[in-house]
Structures are given as C-alpha cells and as structure tokens.
C-alpha cells in the first residue's frame, strides 16, 4: 500500500505538473543552500542564516505594500534587501558595542520578525483576503509554487553558482585563513560581503519552500552532514549540495502525499535524518565505527596486559 503510494508519487514527478514544480523548487533550494551553507558552517557563522531569514520577512511585506502584486521576483527583492540590512545591523551591533554576536543575532531576528508581523497584520487589516498568500513564507508552502516561480528560483540559484565558481579560490582562502588572504592582497572585506550576498540569495530562495523559521537548518544541516564524510572543500560542497537536493525532493514528495502538510518542516526533518545517519555511520568519524574501534583497541590492550602479567609471573 505504502509502496504503491510512493511509486505513484515518484511517477508523479515526471507526469504531474504541480508535483514536478514543487519537487524542482525544493531541489533548487536544497542544492543552493547545501553548497553555500558549507561556507557559513566553516566560517563559524551558522546562526547568521537564522537572523538573515527572519530579517527578510518585513521586506516581503513592504514589497507587497508598495508594489501591490504578489510577483515573486519583487517580493524576493524586498526580502533580499531586508535580509542584507539585517546582516549589516548585526555586524554593526557587534562592531560598535560590547554586545556579543549571539545577542546581536537574537536582537536582529526577533525585532525584524516583529516588524514583519506588524506589516503583515497591517496588510491584513487594510487588504482583507488579498494578503492571504504572504503568511506562507513563515513555514514555506512549496505546493503553491508555479512555473514562473520555479524559473525565478532557478535564475537566482544559477546566479549564486556562477559567483561561487568564479570566486571559489578567493572564498576558500578567505574562509580558511582570512589573515593570509589579506596579506596576499585579497579584498577580504568585499569578499565577505559578496559571500553574504549569495547566502542572502539562498535564504530568499528558501522562503518559498521552507519558510523563514526553518531556513537555518537548510544552511547548516547538509554542510554538517557532508563534513562527516569528506574534508576537502570542493567535494564537501558537492556532497552537501547533493544532500540538500535529496532532502528537498524527498521532503516535498512526502508532504505532497499528505494533505495540508507544510513542506518546510518535512524537508528539515529529512535533512536532519541525513545528518543523523552521517554522524553515526560515517567511516572515519562516525559513532558506530569509533565505538567498534574503541572496543577492538580495548580488547587488544587487555589481552596484551594479560600477556605481560603472565610473563611477570612466569619469571617470578
């Protein structure tokens, strides 16, 4: 029964118009955030994505307020501007006060989110039902994706990857050894800003499918999972993108099988499951193999100790 259902969903990806775009949109998000998330993870800015995604919310409302359309490109532009602004505010707080990064992130995410809610409820009070579609950005509703949305998402994702490929070497050096990059004459400040910008774009893509609240997991979890298997940056990026893409497709398929289920939470649970598997089973560092190794070493040692004491006794 379940198998039949899964099969019909799998077939649906190729035949069903809606499902194809839902899966495609989620896959685009997973691949982009998977690849870019590696940088946030390695630059120890994991929760930066959380603040950025929350800060995007008022941008969506304001774009809608001024433009009056639900054109996804315009809403995404508004979201991107505010996400960027949120990032600048966070950096501004940490660089001009003694407040540490964690509190600065908390301030940005909660205050911007509050502003977003104010604007959304304001739109509700003036526009009635016409605002209805905007609150889907809270948890993401991939089922609402249409062809033009997916094309937009694809264009944005392609832009991210072009930047990523062109500046790969620079990003790599700036990530692993910022001081060294600076000594080589790389403009590390601008590189950091550029990297933040592409992450902002990834966040904006994610608003459609996983929503504001859960976006942070899409940046961290695939990268953290890939990190358990591989240590080279390039292969880690690729694996992380694959993990992200798989979780996007699987998550949107599962959520399409059940009526009224938000896509975002399901995708997040899928990618967390992949991370869990990676943590336990990865051959070099996984818990399972560590445990087995420990056990073997322990047994080996104890038999050696046994031998030594035997020798001692025979000599005595």
């Amino acid at each position: 029964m379940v198998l039949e259902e899964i099969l019909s969903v799998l077939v649906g990806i190729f035949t069903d118009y809606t499902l194809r775009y839902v899966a495609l949109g989620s896959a685009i998000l997973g691949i982009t955030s998977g690849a870019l998330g590696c940088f946030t993870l390695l630059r120890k800015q994991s929760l930066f994505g959380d603040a950025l995604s929350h800060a995007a919310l008022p941008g969506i409302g304001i774009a809608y307020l001024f433009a009056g359309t639900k054109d996804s490109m315009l809403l995404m532009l508004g979201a991107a501007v505010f996400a960027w602004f949120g990032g600048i505010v966070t950096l501004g707080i940490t660089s001009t006060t003694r407040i540490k990064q964690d509190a600065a992130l908390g301030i940005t995410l909660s205050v911007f989110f509050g502003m977003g809610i104010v604007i959304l409820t304001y739109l509700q009070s003036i526009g009635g039902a016409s605002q209805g579609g905007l609150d889907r950005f809270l948890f993401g509703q991939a089922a609402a994706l249409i062809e033009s949305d997916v094309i937009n998402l694809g264009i944005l994702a392609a832009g991210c990857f072009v930047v990523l490929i062109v500046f790969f070497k620079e990003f790599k050096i700036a990530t692993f050894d910022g001081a060294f990059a600076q000594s080589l004459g790389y403009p590390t400040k601008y590189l950091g800003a550029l990297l933040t910008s592409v992450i902002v774009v990834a966040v904006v893509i994610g608003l459609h499918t996983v929503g504001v609240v859960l976006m942070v997991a899409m940046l961290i979890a695939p990268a953290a999972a890939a990190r358990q298997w591989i240590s080279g940056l390039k292969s880690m990026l690729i694996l992380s993108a694959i993990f992200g893409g798989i979780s996007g497709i699987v998550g949107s398929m599962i959520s399409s099988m059940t009526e009224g289920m938000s896509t975002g939470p399901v995708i997040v649970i899928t990618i967390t499951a992949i991370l869990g598997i990676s943590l336990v089973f990865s051959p070099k560092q996984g818990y399972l193999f560590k445990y087995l190794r420990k056990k073997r070493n322990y047994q080996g040692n104890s038999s050696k100790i046994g031998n030594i004491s035997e020798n001692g006794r025979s000599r005595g």
Partner: protein
Amino acid sequence: MSSDLIIIGTAVLVAANCASIGAFLVLRQMAMMSDAISHAVLLGIVIAVFVVGGRETVPVIVGGVLSGILTVSLVELLYRTGRLKKDSSIGIVFPFLFAIGVILVTQAGNVHVDAQHVLYGSIEFAPFDTLYVDEINIGSKSLWVLGILAVANISFISILYKELKISTFDASFAVSVGLMPVLIHYLLMIMVATTAVVAFESVGAIMVIAFFIVPAAGSYLLTDRLSRMIPLSVTLGIVSAVAGYLFALSADVSIAGSMATMAGIVFGLIWVFAPHRGLVSRWRRNSKQRFEVDVGIMLTHLNNKIEPHHQLTSSSISDALGWTIEYSRKVCEFSLDEKLVKKDESGRLLLTESGRKKAEHYTSG
C-alpha cells in the same frame, strides 16, 4: 477588570519575567540558546496536549520544560562529540524539534494550536481565558500563571544571586570555590524553559526571544553593574511592552509584533544615545581625541620650524599638514585659548613656554 488592563498586565509580566532572566543569557553569551528553547517548547506543548487531551496549564508547562531540557541536552550532546560547533548544534537541534512540533500541530485536527499563532501568539485572547477555583471566577488565567512565574523567577534570582553572578563572570573561579556552575547552568536553563513556555502561550516564540534578549542587551549598554542591569532590563522590557500595546491599538496590528518592534526601537535609541557606550558619545570621544592629537601635531610642527624668517600662520599650517583652512584655524584658536601658542606683532605663531614643553613631551615620549 477590563480586558485592556488584562492584556497590558499580561504583557508587562511577560516582559518582566523574560527580561530579568535574559540579563544572564546576554552576559553568559547564551542568547541563541533561548532562541532554541523558545522554539522547541512547541513540541513539548503539543505532546502534552495530545497526552492530556486539552490545554491544561500544568501538563503544558511540564511538557514545555521537558522539551526545553531535551533541547539543551541534545545541543550539548552534539557539541561535546566535537563533530559540530556549538552554534551549528543549536541551528540543527531546534529547527528539527520545531519542525516535528509544526507537523504534529498541522496534522492533528483536535489540537487547538494554530501554527502561525505559535510564532506570534494570541495575547489578544488573554482576557477570555479565566481561571475557576471551585467554580468561582478568580480572574485571568494568564495573569495568575505569569504572576506565579514572576515570584518563582524573583526567588530564583535572589536566592542564587551570588552563585549566578560568580558562575556568569568567572566560571572557573566558581568551580574552585565549590559553587557548581554546571548545576547553576541547568537550573538557569530550566527557568528559561519555564519562562519561555509560559510566555509562549501569550506572545509566541519569536516575541519571547525579543523579550529575553533585546531589553537585556540594551541595559548592558547602560550599566556595568549586574545589580542595576537586571531592574533596568525589566524596566526597558515593560516600557517596550506598554508602548507596543498602545501602538498596536492605534494602528490595528499584531500586539506581539509591535511589542517586539518597540523593544527594537528602544534598543536602537540606547545604541545611538547611550551616555558612554552609545554611537554618539563614541563618535564625540573619538573626534575629541583626534582633535587633541592634532593640537599636539601642530605644536610639534611649530617646535621644529622655529626659525626667524619662517612665516607660520594657520594657512601655512594647513598647507604643511594637509588640513583644511577652517580646521587649522580651529586648532590654532584652541591653542591660542589654551595659551599654548601666541601671536607676535606680524601675526606669526610662536610657541609659549607651556606649548614648547608640551611639544617636547610629544617628541620625546
């Protein structure tokens, strides 16, 4: 009691409860842990509602606190393995637990929790939820629960004040004098979870974070003493809550959202105008220091160029040091007022005795 008063009272109590505990979160750099806990309590609340079959206060609080502790433990478990950094662990654990919570909420028709209200609460309905003892109406439930929580928080902070303070500022010293900072850490996390789950009911997850972090961060910029920071943080929280409520009423928008916005505005004002740490006073201090340095540079310049035929006026200084004419004039006037330089009859600048001493002090030291 009128419903306005009940809503304001609820908001004030939420703000006070969160802001007092929040002072420790900001100082211990655990602000994002409160983010994680406030999201994760949803799962515990939903499971409690499933088990009991209704939104009874006590099971909901117990469920929320348990899931808060689960969050903290999971984050530490992941982080202790050394495979993940602390912030990454936080960013993985709480979306996961929150996602499960959201799915349970949306899939179970009989749970009266709306997924969006999880995020921005329903303080608007606080007046309609009354508490009955022996079928006698004893007033708003949220006021009672939050009031009891306030008593608990005040006792927690005042009884363990010394322990909290020492373990916050110097954990290794706390260990050495036997204060058990780990125990304090978990007790604090339990209080955070309790506060989060109680406040969650009225203002939602994100606003809980706003009240935990924003007022405390603001008061951190205003004072250096913990004993002042806590009441100040509570005051800022209450001010934001009341201002937010009034704004929400006049603009007909979400109450919780406008409270968080007000908290942000209050923080922004402090960030800019705070007496010692604000942007304005920083800028003034910087420009004052730069001016003093520039006076020194000019005196040194005069000291080096003292030759009878050298014409030193404010315009030649501006050429030599690359300053604008106005700025050199300002520096010259300041030095004349301070009697560091004097003008001879032809308008040339000459060092006075104190000016020469100062210039020599700069060059030698």
